[in-house]
């Protein structure tokens, strides 16, 4: 088991956003958190990333307790997770290459290894020719690929994705979904994907967690959830 969520709760200004949530995620799984806006799915993802501590409950990543009873024990930079943000958060003052390289530099990976890893990931996402381009010079889909490469290049144990395709048109979304799927299978990485789009959830997930008002309503495989919905 790579992620263990035990009775986790979170409230903002005394309004509960996550209520007593528990979930176990196995290594290599593609979990999709599905739910309407405001159901707490992004909060849940940000708790796993370490940006916000849960008020109650315990979070365990790869056997290590990372947050317990309102206290964040391990900082986001040490949790070995990668994340693709809803707004992608590509740094506009850095080229694609520099954006991807940033995490490797922070982890003090030697230059030759850095270059190797970046070239490999750029090839995997078919973006080699855009490595010197700034985010502002890239299309939405290309930016998406760079954000994905940046999240994956540090070899995280878990990849978190917060509605990363929400701003793209339907055709491009399908193309990128297939690419995400291919990359996840190739790298055998655990993925937690947040979305409100059922079709997206059905095409990606090995398991779907349906959330409503801060609670898990139902967990199951794609076919089980299709039937339940």
């Amino acid at each position, binding site marked *: 088991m790579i992620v263990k969520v035990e009775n986790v709760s979170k409230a903002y200004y005394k309004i509960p956003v996550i209520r007593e949530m528990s979930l176990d995620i196995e290594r290599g799984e593609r979990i999709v958190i599905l739910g309407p806006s405001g159901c707490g799915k992004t909060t849940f993802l940000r708790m796993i990333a370490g940006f916000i501590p849960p008020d109650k409950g315990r979070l365990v990543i790869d056997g290590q307790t990372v947050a317990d009873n309102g206290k964040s024990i391990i900082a986001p930079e040490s949790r070995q997770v990668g994340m693709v943000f809803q707004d992608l958060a590509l740094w506009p*003052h850095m080229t694609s290459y520099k954006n991807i390289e940033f*995490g490797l530099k*922070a982890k003090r990976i030697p230059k030759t290894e850095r270059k190797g890893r970046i070239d490999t990931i750029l090839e995997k996402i078919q973006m080699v020719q855009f490595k010197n381009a700034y985010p502002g010079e890239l299309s939405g889909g290309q930016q998406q690929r760079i954000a994905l490469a940046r999240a994956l290049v540090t070899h995280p144990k878990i990849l978190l994705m917060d509605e990363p395709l929400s701003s793209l048109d339907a055709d491009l979304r399908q193309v990128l979904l297939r690419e995400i799927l291919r990359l996840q299978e190739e790298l055998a990485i655990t993925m937690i994907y947040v979305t409100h789009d059922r079709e997206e959830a059905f095409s990606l997930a090995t398991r779907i967690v349906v959330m409503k008002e801060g609670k898990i309503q139902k967990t199951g495989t794609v076919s089980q959830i299709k039937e339940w919905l």
Partner: protein
Amino acid sequence: MAKRLTLYITIFLFVGIGFVPVIVMFLKSFFVDDGFSLNTYGTLFQSNREWKLLFNTLSLAGATTFITVLLGVPLGTLFAKTDLPLRRFFTVIFIIPLLIPSYILAIAWFYCLGRAGIVACVLGEATGILTSNLLFSFAGTLFVMVSALLPIVIILTMTYLRMVNPDMEEAALLHCSWPVALRRITLPLISPGIALGALITFILTLAEFGVPSFLRFDVYSVESFTRLSAFYDFDSTTAAAVPLGVITIVVLIIERLFLRRKTFVFRTMGSENEMVIVPLGESKSYFLVVVSILVFIFVIAPLCVLLCKSLSPSAYSEAFIRSTGSIMRSLLYASVGATCLVIFGFFLGYILDRKILRFSYAADSIAVFLFALPGAVIGIGLSGLWNTQGTNFIYTSMVIIIFGYIAQYTALGERVMAATFPYVSRSMEEAAQIAGAGWYRRIFKVLVPLVKRGMIATWLICFIFCLRDVGITMMVYPPGHDTLPVRTFTLMANSPDNVISALCVIMIMITLLPLCGLGLVKKYIT
């Protein structure tokens, strides 16, 4: 850990440099001959003079605010939202008075309306006496204060107008004409900006020392300075400063209650929709004439008077001889001060915007309180605290002036930076954090490059405010450390008019030249 440590150290340093002197000064005033006593306050508030000072201070601040808003909002609207010809030129010209010490305007009007001024020379001595009496009165002080602070309301009106989502106005235009849309949609939307402009104008008028002092209009800030410089009586000086502190706190409470929650963000940066411009149509020439008259009265006339008065090589030569050291010191102190203020502003603005510490509002309140407090009062606090044998190395060096700048102007840096940080999505920083970057790497590799424009703007604004400062510097400058505004102010009593005018022109030039240089660099880069 590194993040919290850095932020706590910033707050600690700021409070230590700026707030502690004021608090110590206040507490000291309760102890007379080593015993607790309210005598100083008792004596002070029994005199009728105190009530007159209170009335003068409040009426000047109130009237200045009222007229500034009355003129500034329409002017800001005309410059930002209409097709008025030469509107960029007018904007730049109207801003000049904000960049220079306001007493320079008072000097210019003195040369124009004084007993031996231009008007007296042209229209006769009797008229000169009349205009001089008018200038050295409430009306004259009010007029100069309005011309000095008008740019604040103009700039804020223009800034807030640019943030209005054009869709909101276009939705209204489906049902009504422009004047109605402006009155019922646009102006209510920018009301927080107008209120903020009014508040800043009120506070700056309260704190103003140069203009009332020059025009001999009795207000609290002048009283504090006089008590210290004439009698060197710390206790009564502090007591005289307390009403200003109380008024400042009341104004800040009003800001907290009514303005803080009304900060509208109408549209994000880089929004594709252009601002809707109001066509003036046939009224264009009428508005052009009115604005030209106003710009002439408020800016061009006083500047021309100074230029004409100083037009002789000997005046400039004399002015340079008397002030070269002061010019260099002004530029050095303002640069060091602005750099320190950018550093404080960066971290305090970050705390305020990201609300990561419990004391975010407390630190902000202290910064704004100190900004609103008259420079003379902060100067008294700094002198009282640092004028000891052990801390003489601070009191007798430029450090005391820099401390004064930090105390008074940190709010500027903090607020400009706090307004810049929202344009950098939190996820930018989080993405760096999750990639494994520590706090300092995130600061220098991600945050600083993304907010560098805001930092440059902060530096420039702080540089200008430090450069034009009179209140604090006048109070704390050690011998041999006077700046140009202080030098000009002290030379006024016993120097020829043409030399003083030349000094004022030099002051204006050294303020404007860095800005022009920066404008050219920006144009070149673009």
